[in-house]
């Protein structure tokens, strides 16, 4: 009887130490799930999901506080990828947060710009170049098309224009399907 108790205690202590050691040795920094979700999100940082950026939305999804269908820039592709990652069923985009639009880029009408720097402060990815009372311009390759700069502009000189398609970015269209095929 005593032997059994001692043996079990010894085993418990050994495993306890092992687990304790493992917890320290293999400690994971941060929540990998949040990072995995964040990696799928399009990083426009537009806030259309109702969270102040992609990372906070990723955190909310990881904590089961938000649905996976609140990202309009990511659209269907993002929803499918998130569903895949989290083992959920894909659901259509929440109409409340907006709709999937073609990729856009902001353009500043440099004639009208008064150099107020409000858009610079709004841009989440530092894609606007300018200084007080100097004309501002968008660094187009860095622009995520989040539209956050449009609202603060006091002279309404920022337009969102669809990105022009060229031969390097063109995609083959989805093949046409006949009715009979589509039934499958």
């Amino acid at each position, binding site marked *: 009887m005593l032997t059994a108790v001692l043996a079990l205690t010894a085993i418990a202590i050994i495993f306890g130490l092992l687990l304790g050691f493992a917890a320290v040795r293999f400690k994971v920094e941060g929540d990998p799930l949040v990072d995995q979700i964040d990696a799928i999100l399009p*990083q426009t940082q537009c806030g259309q999901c109702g969270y102040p950026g992609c990372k906070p939305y990723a955190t909310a999804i990881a904590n089961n506080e938000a649905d996976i269908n609140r990202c309009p820039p990511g659209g269907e*592709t993002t929803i*499918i990828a998130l569903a895949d990652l989290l083992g959920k069923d894909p659901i259509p985009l929440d109409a409340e947060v907006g709709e999937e639009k073609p990729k856009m880029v902001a353009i500043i009408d440099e004639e009208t710009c008064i150099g107020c720097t409000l858009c610079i402060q709004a841009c989440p*990815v530092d894609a606007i170049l300018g200084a007080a009372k100097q004309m501002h311009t968008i660094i187009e390759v860095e622009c995520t098309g989040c539209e956050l700069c449009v609202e603060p502009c006091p002279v309404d000189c920022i337009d969102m224009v669809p990105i022009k398609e*060229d*031969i390097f*970015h*063109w*995609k*083959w269209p989805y093949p046409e399907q006949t009715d009979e095929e589509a039934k499958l």
Partner: protein
Amino acid sequence: MIRQLFRFKGGIHPPQHKDRSTRSPIQAAWLPKQLILPLHQHIGESGEPIVAVGDHVLKGQKIARASGYVSASVHASSSGTITAIEELPIPHPSGLSASCIVIDTDGEDRWIEHGPEDIPYTEMDVSHLRNLIRTSGIVGLGGAGFPSSIKLNPAGSKIDTLILNGVECEPYITCDDMLMRERPENIIAGAKIMRHALNARQCLIAIEDNKPEAYTAMIEACKDEDIEVVQVPTLYPQGSEKQLIKVLTGKECPSNGLPFQIGIVVHNVGTAAAVHNAINLGEPLISRIVTVTGDGVAEPCNLEVLLGTPMQALLDQCGGLNSDVDRIIMGGPMMGFAMHSTEIPVIKTTNCILAATESNVTAPSDVMPCIRCGACADVCPVDLLPQQLQWYARSKEFERAQEHNLFDCIECGCCAYVCPSNIPLVHYYRYAKTEIWAQEREKEKADIARQRHEFRQSRIEREKAEKAARLAKKKAAVKKPADGEKDDKQAAIQAALDRAKAKKEAQGVEPKNIENMTPAQQKQIDDANARRQQTDTSEQES
């Protein structure tokens, strides 16, 4: 000794239709009034224009330089004036426009001064030789258009075999066939230069057995050369690099790998002839042989065409289009794609212009559901599962498609050709490939955006912290010296007062206007004195 040949898996035997365009010899195409030279005629970066609108250029003059390692220069194909550098439709499945240089020809077709280098290529530095080929704007003329100078750089690997590809397995196309029949010596001369650049042990020229005239001509031209001409049994898609390597050597190119990794380099016979022109004659790539054929054109033939010539001009020269033409295809019926207009120019990779009639084309309405017969898998030359790939592409499960080696697909079209349900399988693969590339680009962009956003976030935090620190420091700095200063000031004032008092006492100076004052004035003075007294005492107390 007869070379042992191997066989790759799958493949098909589509009707050849080659004889119709081989009845007449290669003719020179008419000089068009206008040449449209796209800056992007090859795989890689577009060329960069080095001429301006209004410039007069001569035939063979470089008008755009290569803008990166994988890029190619463009030369004026005839003399004339640059009238525009603008976006115009180019041969591309999208029908989109891209930058082009437009030359209005002057009809003189005058060459720029040119000629071979003073020293023969055998005595040249190999990198100089490659550079000459690069500045001549030579790209693979078989259809893909990869800059040839890169494929002539073994980059440290030992090259055993140089294969010249004269297979031309796709139906209708005969430009390489006619080139081999009529100018075998040019091909041989180019092959020798390529072999020298690669330092290859052996050189093979592969020709399918449906081109006996070309085979005979090449055998004749190779009589005194250390080059082996190999006849291979006709089988589509044998002209594909990796399949041809398998047939000739039995070696298999690794998935995602390149032939030079197994010591083999494959070049098209047309490319070899272009290399001969560049090195032995000093002529850059400004023309190519184009097969104009199909049921829709009256007199099919092969034309030597100046690059930039609008396709309509070639169709006109071949007797015009018949009324039942459905579409104009660049390339062959298996791998080509439809042109959106006939004003699109011929580029370096235009091997064939096929005027297809309605009967040659599968309408989308003919498409039926997949019956899982497996015929596609039997003919796939790269051993993929076409049906499975199609399901994945169709349901947008791109990751699964990639797991099934979608990117090994060479888009040869065998699977779609044998499909009893007429499913446009290759279209699905092309769709999936471009979607995956787009997603990869998006991902790259998202990563940069994340990095920039995080950097901004941390910068704002840092600025806030710095500002707070600065403020605190300032506050502390303002407070401390203020105490000391106050004491100093007070002491100085006191000292001055004392000095004045002492002086006053010593001199006995009194204000001079204090006599004869009214009681009211006296009272005011007394009040003021009392107030002053009070402030003095209160200050001293504090």
